[in-house]
């Protein structure tokens, strides 16, 4: 397996600058600002350079490449497999309630004997991520690892898209199935957020829309906590993610992040379900603990990959926009610690998302995550 960072300004001149490889690129992943991707220019460039590859990417407010972040750059990475192969599946959804079906359709399309993992990128605003992942999980066997995320748009929460082949659209879900007996995939997620304040009860909600906590409007609570920063809602709500859990199984906690707010109804839309009757508690992050947890996740993913005696590969980072908003310049440090742990043999590429997907992991909860950093390492064994 080979992985190469694609310098988009280079290939704008000539494809010949690419190094010759033993196999053609089969997959090219691209992450960048919505505006850059929507124009289609980048896709055209990549198509010229990688005529046989699956072009696959999504919008984001912040890209990750190697050990640095950028709020303006578009990043791309080309991947060639020795013996493994990839297939793509695409679903468009009309509205959020279609998310589960879309997940099922993708799962059914990609499912196959040698399927090792699925990378899924979804529109970040129009999709119920929890339902999408549940649809996938219910159609794919448990050993198939599912990774990916919801497209982002920085602090704007205005326009997200997914690119696949020549398409660059909102409301799109694309997934790449990775197949072959030599393919190895490990993934990890880490949060590092701390709970604080009283435990609350979700007294009124409807799917992913939260109306009331403890019988009072949820938006009132967030506005109180945010103070002046309430003006930056919904993005500023990411500073205080919401941990929720079913009182009947208090160990299965999930963290939810806000996608939008409705000032008139005093409600908040989250990136996943907020079941009524569950308990909830606000969370907040300290830089140190968020960064430490990223390092732990990296160590863990790396050790899993080493156990499988693999060599070079790719490390895909999908981290939450909430972490980016909170940590500002220091966000780079969580990428830096991952880089330090994983080292040079696994080039890092990734994006800051509106929701991280990590399912069928060996450890930890499975499904749509929020406010986490997730690492997916892909490799081939000889």
């Amino acid at each position: 397996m080979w992985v190469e960072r694609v310098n988009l300004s280079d290939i704008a001149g000539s494809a010949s600058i690419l190094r010759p490889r033993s196999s053609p690129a089969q997959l090219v992943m691209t992450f960048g600002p919505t505006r850059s991707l929507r124009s289609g220019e980048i896709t055209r460039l990549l198509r010229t350079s990688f005529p046989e590859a699956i072009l696959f990417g999504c919008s984001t407010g912040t890209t990750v490449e190697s050990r640095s972040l950028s709020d303006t750059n578009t990043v791309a990475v080309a991947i060639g497999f020795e013996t493994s192969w990839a297939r793509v599946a695409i679903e468009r959804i009309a509205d959020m309630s279609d998310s589960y079906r879309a997940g099922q359709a993708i799962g059914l399309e990609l499912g196959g004997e040698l399927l090792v993992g699925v990378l899924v990128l979804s529109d970040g605003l129009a999709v119920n991520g929890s339902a999408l992942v549940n649809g996938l999980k219910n159609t794919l066997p448990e050993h198939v690892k599912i990774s990916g995320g919801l497209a982002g748009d920085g602090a704007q929460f205005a326009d997200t898209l997914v690119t696949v082949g020549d398409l660059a659209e909102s409301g799109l879900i694309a997934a790449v199935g990775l197949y072959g007996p030599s393919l190895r995939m490990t993934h990890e997620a880490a949060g590092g957020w701390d709970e604080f304040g009283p435990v609350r009860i979700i007294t009124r909600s409807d799917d992913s829309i939260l109306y009331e906590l403890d019988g009072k409007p949820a938006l009132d609570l967030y506005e109180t906590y945010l103070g002046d920063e309430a003006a930056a809602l919904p993005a500023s709500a990411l500073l205080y993610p919401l941990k929720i859990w079913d009182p009947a199984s208090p160990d299965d906690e999930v963290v939810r992040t806000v996608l939008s707010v409705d000032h008139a109804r005093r409600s908040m839309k989250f990136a996943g379900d907020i079941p009524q009757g569950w308990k909830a508690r606000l969370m907040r992050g300290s830089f140190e603990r968020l960064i430490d947890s990223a390092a732990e996740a990296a160590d863990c993913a790396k050790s899993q990959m080493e156990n499988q005696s693999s060599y070079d590969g790719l490390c895909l980072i999908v981290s939450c926009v909430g972490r980016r908003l909170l940590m500002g310049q220091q966000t780079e440090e969580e990428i830096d610690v991952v880089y330090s742990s994983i080292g040079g043999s696994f080039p890092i590429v990734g994006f800051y998302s509106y929701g991280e997907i990590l399912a069928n992991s060996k450890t930890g909860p499975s499904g749509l995550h929020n406010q986490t950093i997730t690492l997916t390492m892909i490799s081939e064994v000889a």
Partner: protein
Amino acid sequence: MSYHPLLNRQLLKAKCDDESIDVPTLLSLVSTAYQEKDIDRKRADHANRVMADELNVTLSELALQNMRFRAAMDNMYHGLSLFDEQGRLVVCNSRFLEIYGIDGETSPIGLELPEILGRCNALSRANDLDKRLIIREHICLDRLDRTPIEQQWPDGRWVELTRTSVADGGFLDTIVDITGAHQASDKIAHLARHDHLTDLPNRVLLRERLLEIYRNRRRQQKCAILFLDLDGFKAVNDTLGHAIGDLLLVEVSRRLLSIVREMDVVARLGGDEFAIVMQHIRSRSSPQRFARRVINLLNRPFTIEGYKIHVGASVGIDIIDASEMDADQILRNADIALYQAKADGKNTARLYDPAMHAAVTARRQLEVDLSNAVLFKQFEVFYQPQIDLEAGTVSGFEALARWRHSGRGMISPTEFIPMCEENGLIEELGAQILEVACKDAMAWPACVTVSVNLSPVQFKSGNLPTIVKDVLEKIGFPGSRLELEITESAIFDRSSGIISQLSEIRKLGIRVSLDDFGTGYSSLSHIRSFPFDRIKIDQSFVRELGADAESLAIVRAVVGLCENLGIQSTAEGVETHKQLDVLQHEQCRSVQGYLFSEPVTMSETMKIISEFNTDPPKQISIRRRAA
């Protein structure tokens, strides 16, 4: 010198192609980093403040909640104490302090259970060992079992303790004062074994006492049981009411208790029946002597609510060896002896002997048979003619009930009538006889009447006039051909309203005669109390006519009296010509007796009527009929 990683990154970002630092870029990055830190600090401050406010609200809500819990706990009926994993008291309510008598000023919170129990006043009256046992039992309660235990404390209280385990490794004890419940169950147990009116032991406790005697028996130890029944109690209840009757029973129980020994038992079995168990008796005669004392004691008049009341008592006695005690048998034997005592004329005591058993059984069987005979109308009616001496004709017949028992043959009315009276059968029997007699009399010539005897008991219900009227209407028999006979003793009991009932009967055209005159009180006032149509002179006087001058004087006086008052006189039991002669000489109006005819069946009455009435003889032809 090593810089902060952030500064290193900022330097890297500010580095120009020629490796020089773009100072404005660096400063901008550094400034932004300061701003971000400021924002983060302010954000944390703000969040902490809001959280503190929220927690304050929550705290005050919790305080309110605590206050409510405290109020609820302190008003619980149960005492409650919650101990932590180390066994130290963390929470208790005021009921807990109250039950244990723990001084509220020195809080037991933080103390372990043994220390708390050691301090509590409620156990201070116990001696050391008892106290240790009570405390130990409490401390060792099983927290998983949850089965309550009961303790009786030295101050007499009963408490129930329950222990439950708590999730934090501690335990929760609840304590409740169940003294009231114990008292109630004691009371219930007492009520179940005692008579509520006199508070004497009842039949249940009597039986238990007998079993106790058996369990504690010694060799050749004898005991006696006396069954006692008041004679005349029913009359007290009927005449003075049940309230007086109840007071009389209470007084009887007091008198009985006053003469028994401490070891003896007096029980009320129900109604006017009492039992006395005498233990350790020395001779067979001592219970009998004691029974006599009882009878004498109860014969003494009682004064209840201003009424002077006389009752008697019949006593049945059985004596057995304590080692052969069979409670059922001794009770049955004493009952049989009592039955015999009553049969023997009351106000007497009888000692059980096995022969009695057969007699009583036979009598009881007879009672059952009698009841069936009344039910199935198995009585026959015989008739004895009454002869009008002036006309020499049969003026009427006296109806006499006869019972032909399948095993014993004919049974005398003197035997079965009292039994019917005692067993509440007389009203039904009386109605049956009346109906048969009236039906039979329909066959006789219109000048021939029928007379039917009445028992005083038939007046008790007050229904007699209605019964008589119904019979007459049912059969279509004219009241003028019916005569009802009552005895003097019936008139004496004015309480039954006999006079008014007789007056009603008389309005139906029925004649009323006074039977067996001379045997009772022979009171002229009785004759005056009601306008009798006939007075029947008792056969005891008639029998002596010609032999005894006194009898003649009485007969003459009565006949004369009747003559003057315009009342018919009839002499009963005329058996000889001599008696008839005397009666004719004394101008007695009518006679009946074996001289003319013994009581006969209905079919034979027709012959008698035809013999006497078709061709009335000038001189009465006297003929004795074959038996």
